[in-house]
């Protein structure tokens, strides 16, 4: 068996599903963020796999991956600041208890 693009696509799909399950099922806001990070990484792994197996002549996929990593870092910084602000307000980071905007 030699390595093919499909192996990486399958791995990324499973990782994305794990991250999604974590983001949907955990109640702690920090663990929801961890799930989102796992999904981000699965998507970026997909980009790099496509670069390696199909379009290695051009750097576009790697550039997209670098920008995606930058945005993920900014997102996690703002997300964790929000978690800390919410904790100061509610004394809890349980996403089930944040009902202020419920219609």
């Amino acid at each position, binding site marked *: 068996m030699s390595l093919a693009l*499909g192996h990486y696509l*399958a791995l990324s799909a499973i990782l994305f*599903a*794990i*991250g999604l399950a974590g983001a949907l099922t955990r109640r702690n806001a920090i663990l929801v963020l*961890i799930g989102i990070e796992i999904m981000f990484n699965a998507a970026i792994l997909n980009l*790099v796999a496509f670069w390696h197996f199909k379009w290695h002549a051009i750097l576009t996929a790697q550039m997209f991956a670098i920008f995606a990593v930058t945005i993920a870092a900014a997102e996690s*910084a703002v997300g*964790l600041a929000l978690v800390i602000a919410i904790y100061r307000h509610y004394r809890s980071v349980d996403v089930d208890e944040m009902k202020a905007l419920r219609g």
Partner: protein
Amino acid sequence: MWECPSGHDRVTCRARKGAPTVAETMTYAFLILSVITLLGALLAVLLRNLVHCVLSLILFFLGVAGHYFLLRADFLAAVQILIYIGAVAVLILFAIMLTRNVTGTEGPREVFGMKWWSGGVIAAALAAGVLRAVINDPVSQAGSSAQANSSVAEIGKALVGHWVVPFEAMAVLLTAALIGAVVIALEEVMRRR
């Protein structure tokens, strides 16, 4: 078949005849790294103790960095270790310490509750759908190529050449995120004064 490169003596070569080919080695490396990555992701999602979750997340990030090395994206692998393990994981650890007591365990929860089942079913359905598409699509058959290679110098030139506008936009975004994070986290303190 292994061919004797010049400069190697015959004994080394004969010992290497039974060695795996490059493709086989890549497959083994892929399998080992995949096990590490999947284990890290699963534990990060399933463990009870928040600090343990972050440690598993670091294992997951390391596995992904290894995958980048295997795919010959060296710069991205270095970026992955520096940014994700060096910055994001440490940031999450600090957030845990600021929001919980240092042990950081989650409160009691109903295992296999309604939320657990619905989230698991949605994620499993998504995985099944994407995996089915991956297996059926001919693009999955694309094999690995030895030419795939990227030097840091090339990436640097592209970043300040063809990609300079998104590069500058990233700089503005990072500054805005930095200021925004400080403002959001400080708001309550300012109000108290």
